[in-house]
């Protein structure tokens, strides 16, 4: 009886996975694991702090009025993670890759009681508490399902709140923090 159930287990799992259209959209070679934040690379801070003449992708005004600018290469040199989550702007669960918000906050010297303004290319901005980024794995996604985000499709950076893994974040209030076309972070 129990052996039969054990044999049936993977079959049932397969059925339940394949019957979930959101999960089914994750490609077979996805770097994400459902329910986990996967670390893709430990990062290289030497590259982050080294001078780079490339096009600035993200400008950050940090503590003591310090300005940190990151080119695409420097942004990619931050520790990279992959988080699978869903939102109302894309179909199903997708795999978002990029540095975590808490690492970005470390770079600009933000503390948990601080807030930051997240500003998009079109000057739209929203104020976000740093504590939220320290508590949850908020990701500054540079790519979705392995494809880099362009300006025409929410790029270069899309702030993603992990709503799938945290039921308490599944509210339109937290959706307002998911700024796309991000190009500036200002510590208040």
């Amino acid at each position, binding site marked *: 009886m129990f052996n039969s159930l054990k044999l049936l287990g993977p079959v049932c799992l397969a059925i339940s996975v394949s019957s979930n259209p959101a999960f089914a959209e994750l490609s077979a070679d996805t770097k994400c694991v459902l329910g986990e934040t996967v670390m893709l690379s430990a990062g290289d801070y030497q590259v982050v702090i080294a001078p780079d003449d490339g096009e600035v992708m993200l400008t950050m005004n940090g503590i003591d009025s310090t300005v940190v600018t990151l080119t695409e290469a420097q942004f990619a040199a931050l520790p990279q993670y992959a988080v699978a989550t869903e939102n*109302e*702007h*894309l*179909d199903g669960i997708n795999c978002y890759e990029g540095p975590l918000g808490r690492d970005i906050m470390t770079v600009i010297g933000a503390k948990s009681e601080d807030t930051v303004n997240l500003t998009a290319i*079109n000057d739209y901005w929203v104020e976000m508490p740093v504590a939220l980024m320290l508590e949850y794995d908020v990701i500054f996604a540079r790519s979705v399902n392995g494809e880099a985000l362009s*300006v*025409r499709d929410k790029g270069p950076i899309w702030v993603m709140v992990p709503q799938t893994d945290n039921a308490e974040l599944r509210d*339109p209030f937290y*959706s307002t923090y998911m700024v796309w076309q991000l190009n500036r972070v200002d510590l208040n």
Partner: protein
Amino acid sequence: MYSARRVTFAIGSLIFVVLIGLVFYGYQSFQRDVEALQIAGQEDISWPTGQLELELMRFRAELHAMEAHDGGAASNASVNQRFDIMWSRVIVFQRGRVGERLSSYDLQTEIVARLFATMQAYETRVLTLQPGDRDTISDIDAAFKPFSEELREFSRRVAQGEQQISIDIRTQLRSGAQRTLIILGVATLMLVIALLVILRDARLSRRLADHNQRLAEEATRASLAKSQFLTMMSHELRTPMNGVIGLLALARQSSMSAALNRMLSQAERSANLMIGLLTDILDFSALQSNNMPVQHKTFSLRELADNLRKYDHRVDQPMQVDVEADTPDILLGDEKRLTEIYAHIMGYMLETAGVEGVVLRLSHNGEMLCAAIHYHYTKGDIWYPAMLADNLQQDDDNFATGVVGPTIARGLCDLMKGNINVSPDLGEGGLVSIEIPAAVASIPQINVWLETQSVVTRKLCEVALRDSRIVLMTAESGQQADVILLEDQGQVSDARLRALRESFPSARAIGLGTSAERLPFDQYLDLPIDIAVLRATIIDRLAS
């Protein structure tokens, strides 16, 4: 009562159906409320249309700026960036739940689809737009200009649609609350009805219970009246029967012919049997009305055996009764009832069943008085005296007079917490075993020194003191006396009393005589002797 149950069942079924309906209705309502709350928790889709409208305006403004100021490469980049941003706003309409909801407002006009088609058509021209190329700029602006008004109308439509959804949600939640109120009201009403039905049923049940109790009391009273009538009649019949027996006995004392004497003897015996039957009826009535007292007094087992041997019954055959050696003689129990049990059962076996070789052996196993009645039955068929052990014969509709005795015996046995077991005679003799609790009495004995002048006084004293616990001493006893009974004869007795006190210093001296209180004695009883007073005095001494 039957119709009342049907009404209760109908109301209960109705309540059940209504409650099931309420559960279903409540579930539906709850689901609708959940759906409404889910919609209320969705992303706001008013802003993407406004954003698209705004980005179109900004794109066109950049075009106009480029046309007016001829800004060079920087202006071209700004136009391209605005174009890209506008592109990204259009993409919002194509994916996700937000895109799906937005598209539902654009199914007929297809503004966004047309805008996107226009963007795709003009993409190359926008990307390669050169400053100063006023014609191209005008063309592009002319192509996008109509969408400004359409997008404004679209934004208004979406905003109105979302407001309507909000209104619908509020209406849904309000009606959901009303439905919940209705469900609660109906459920409360059902509960009240159920409570009323339960109260009504409880009242009916209580009335039924009262009625049953009244019937039971009436039946008990009727039974009691019957028993009392039986008892009274039996008692009333026994009194004249005693007169008959007495006169028959007197008649037999006179000289009569042998034939007449034989008839008188027969009549006397019949009268005795009648007395026995009346006594049985009295006992039976007492058992039926639980009014049969059972005593716990000391008695001599061997005296009980003697009485059984002399028991008068209808068969000219004495009862053979043995007491096993080493069986304690003084037991605690009701001697009279025990005698009746054994006599009734043995009488039945001898008189009614006609068995032979009936022998009663009495013994004691430490807790129970065991009576083993051995018998032989050699009349062919196997006789199984079941009525001795079971209660079937107490059925009032089928009561044979022959089993009155065993019924009384069984009733007495139950009353004394005993049991009767019967084994049939299968060729080697049968056995009726009767076990009745009877503790062995540890009776202290009292030694009485009796000294009288008159033979009559002595005989009376001996009768009064006939008790297994009382030992009348003789000169040879050589024991200490506990009580000295001395017939008082004045000075002579004083000397004798002194002598006896020296011999038995701890004994209590009781004087028997006619004088006033005599100081030399501890106690004084008047002559002629009152047997009961004398006996009570000695028993008191024994108790102390």
